[in-house]
């Protein structure tokens, strides 16, 4: 594996080359993939819709967050024991790269201004109850006529159509996780289901909303036509539920909770280590062989309980195998085991790593070197530690340009830019409560 095909000039090894191409400190020098797009973020107490606009803004779109005067409800979302500038951490963490505009959509003038923006926007994202904006003349039915190129993204729990769509309740992460089936398969079989700790359904909903938006954008390049996109956070997460519905269809089995065990692959579990817990896996035959070798228990690889993938995935054998692994793992720290795993010459490979509390993840240099986290010294919000965009792109890397801003922070600029509204007219609009 020299990596140097014969006859080619000497060049950097792959890891060094790609590192230079993706160098985090050089990101600001590169162009942005979506900097030709204008996005209206109408999210209002809706994290999934907020995040969809965040993804687009990280990739370069001009995202304008429209809020009622005084700010939208999600500004208050955060844990009880910390806040920034009087605002909730959940909002401050994700409302990045935005232009912040306040508009009262309850006033005719507010609606007129929104239409003026929508007429020029490429994408609009909202998470109101289905039909809510339509009642104000601001739904896709109306805005799509005004701007046929508009891609209008509506986020909700049950979607915009289907028997359960009318009269649906507000969307929450927990209820989405319930509907998706993820709750039903997480936790121990004899205990109630357990939800994923972060608002994962919102991240999933935003990912699907953005995938669909960019697909629709490609279609628009060819057809000139915009469209409406309907994304349910529950369905967003349900699409991630592996093979559960096909397993039911094909075999009649309803997948349930299996705690630290796994019906499809084993070992693939958490075990105790000297200094906490760790994840360990080696489920194919060569990988399981590697695990047995690393544990100094080569005989387990041919044990009649564990010799084949089918033997290893019966529940009784999984219980015994996990015990065997733990007997060994408790004597070593996670770092010691990782060293053994990395030193193993193969064949096969074991997947291993510590269960990190967040502060320990933050202590690992890998993520900092790769630019996953950054500390921003912000003139408005002070020092903020934020997670950076998840993707790396050599030509058009995504980025955080500025964090959250107070509600209406850019109102004067936006009204000047898009409507030619100067200070005098702005004062009138303020006096009438429009902005």
């Amino acid at each position, binding site marked *: 594996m020299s990596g140097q095909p014969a006859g080619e000039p000497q060049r950097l090894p792959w890891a060094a080359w790609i590192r230079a191409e993706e160098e985090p400190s050089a990101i600001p020098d590169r162009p942005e993939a979506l900097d030709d797009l204008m996005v209206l973020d109408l999210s209002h107490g809706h994290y999934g819709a907020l995040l969809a606009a965040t993804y687009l803004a990280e990739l370069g779109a001009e995202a304008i967050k429209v809020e009622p005067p005084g700010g939208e409800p999600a500004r208050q979302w955060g844990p009880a024991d910390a806040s920034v500038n009087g605002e909730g951490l959940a909002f401050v963490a994700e409302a990045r790269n935005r232009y912040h505009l306040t508009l009262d959509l309850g006033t005719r003038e507010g609606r007129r201004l929104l239409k003026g923006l929508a007429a020029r926007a490429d994408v609009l994202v909202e998470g109101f109850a289905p039909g809510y904006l339509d009642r104000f003349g601001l739904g896709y039915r109306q805005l799509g006529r005004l701007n046929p190129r508009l891609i209008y993204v509506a986020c909700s729990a049950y979607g915009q159509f289907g028997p359960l769509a009318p009269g649906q309740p507000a969307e929450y992460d927990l209820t989405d996780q319930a509907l998706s089936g993820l709750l039903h398969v997480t936790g121990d079989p004899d205990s109630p289901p357990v939800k994923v700790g972060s608002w994962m359904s919102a991240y999933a909903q935003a990912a699907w909303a953005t995938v669909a938006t960019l697909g629709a954008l490609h279609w628009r*390049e060819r057809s000139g036509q915009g469209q409406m996109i309907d994304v349910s956070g529950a369905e967003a997460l349900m699409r991630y539920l592996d093979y559960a519905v096909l397993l039911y269809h094909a075999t009649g089995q309803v997948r349930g909770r299996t705690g630290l065990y796994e019906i499809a692959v084993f070992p693939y579990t958490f075990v105790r280590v000297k200094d906490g817990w760790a994840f360990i896996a080696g489920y194919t035959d060569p990988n399981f062989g590697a695990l047995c070798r690393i544990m100094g228990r080569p005989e387990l690889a041919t044990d009649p309980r564990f010799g084949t993938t089918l033997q290893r995935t019966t529940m009784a054998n999984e219980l015994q195998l996990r015990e065997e692994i733990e007997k060994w793992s408790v004597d070593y720290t996670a770092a010691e085991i990782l060293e053994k795993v990395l030193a193993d010459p193969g064949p096969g490979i074991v997947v291993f790593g510590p269960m990190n509390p967040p502060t320990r993840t933050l202590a690992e240099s890998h993520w900092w070197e790769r630019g996953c986290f950054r500390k921003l010294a912000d003139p408005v919000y002070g020092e903020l530690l934020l997670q950076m965009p998840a993707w790396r792109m050599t030509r058009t890397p995504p980025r955080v340009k500025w964090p959250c801003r107070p509600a209406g922070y850019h109102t004067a600029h936006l009204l000047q830019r898009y409507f030619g509204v100067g200070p005098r007219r702005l004062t009138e609009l303020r006096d009438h409560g429009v902005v």
Partner: protein
Amino acid sequence: MANPREYFRWAAKLFDPSRLHEKPEALAGIRVLDLSVIYFGPAPADYLGELGAEVIKVEMPGQGDVTRILGNASFFWQNVSVAFFCANHSKYHVGIDMHKPGGQALIRQLAARSDIVVENFRAGTLEEKFGLGYRQLREVNPRLVYVANTGFGQWGPFSQGRASYDGLAQAVSGLTAITGEGEIPTKIGNYIGDWFGASMSALAALAALHWRDRTGEGQFVEMAQCEGLLRAMDWTWLYAGLTGRDRQKAGNGDHVFAPSGVYRCKDGYMAIVAGTEREFKGLCRLIGRPTLEQDPRFVSRETRRQSASARALDALIAAWCLGRTRAQVEAAARKAGVAAAPVMTAKDHAESAHLRERRSVWEHDDPVYGPMLEYGPAPKLSATPARIKWAGKPVGFHNDFVLRRILGLGEARIRELSAEGAIGQWADGRRGACPPGSWKGEGRLV
């Protein structure tokens, strides 16, 4: 002002699922070369395929993707594991051995005719072992969007020698540490790191495609599973930065919204949240305790989320749910304007008229596997709906189609490649890779 019923009639017509196949596809004309295995690579290719891209899945002749044999004995159905299908829809399956020079030449030819390549080998493997990395493939196709997915990334201290699975990403990202309750970790029950990372990966591929639409330039795009999950932990990092503390586990409660919980009913569980004043008032009426909203413990969002108050509310809601069915709770909660949702099982999904109507549960009839029931595309696009066209196929099922129709190879060259072992299909009787026993040749293309 329109009435809501009219809005829903209009929306039902706009998205009318019965007309879905009549509509165009957003990514028609885009070709994706899928060189990946398991889920984290095959899934983004699959998602692009749902939007209309033509996906060519390359597998090792004879054996194919390991998901074909994933699972315990009960997973095997028509000679293949059910675990294979969820990341492999509507693909063209070709068997190419990349260890053989002839196989490598075919990959280069396919890459030259593709828009997007997706791979999830360990960092550098395709370049170093096969001469098919980004630096080689962009030589034959400068417009190429090359998508590489790994656990820890292409570079950095953890990228060398460390493989990753979803479960590892859950552990090292910190997501496990903020999930569930108590000391014993809760393993999230699906492969969340694979699937979430996969949709983020498809997202980046499409952003790169947009840049290419604008400029003609391709690029290298990477997504790391662990980094996907770190990205999806909302305020965890900001909180650690401000306080130096770890976010505490909250079980089924929520640091922001109270009450929030999962409650046992007669026939399963219900998840209930009341995050606003209006919803909380509705909840008090729902459980027959309208005076609770004046109780000093519950008067505001702030007081309700203090742990003693949240626990007290939890107990009241739990007691009310216990004697009721999920359907009773759901119906009453809707009337009261409270967010309450059944904890659904795969059986519930299969039987849901709502999910079927929306094609989120998708029934189709495959020429090789017969009637299938799978999770359908998540986002609904009114003008270019995403869709499933056929199910995953045996290894090398479309060899002739890919080699003759797409690459234009003649009979003699195909015989040579076959003799060299550079191309191949399933091995008869090899579980996972081969067609069902009942198959009589249906669905072949050439």
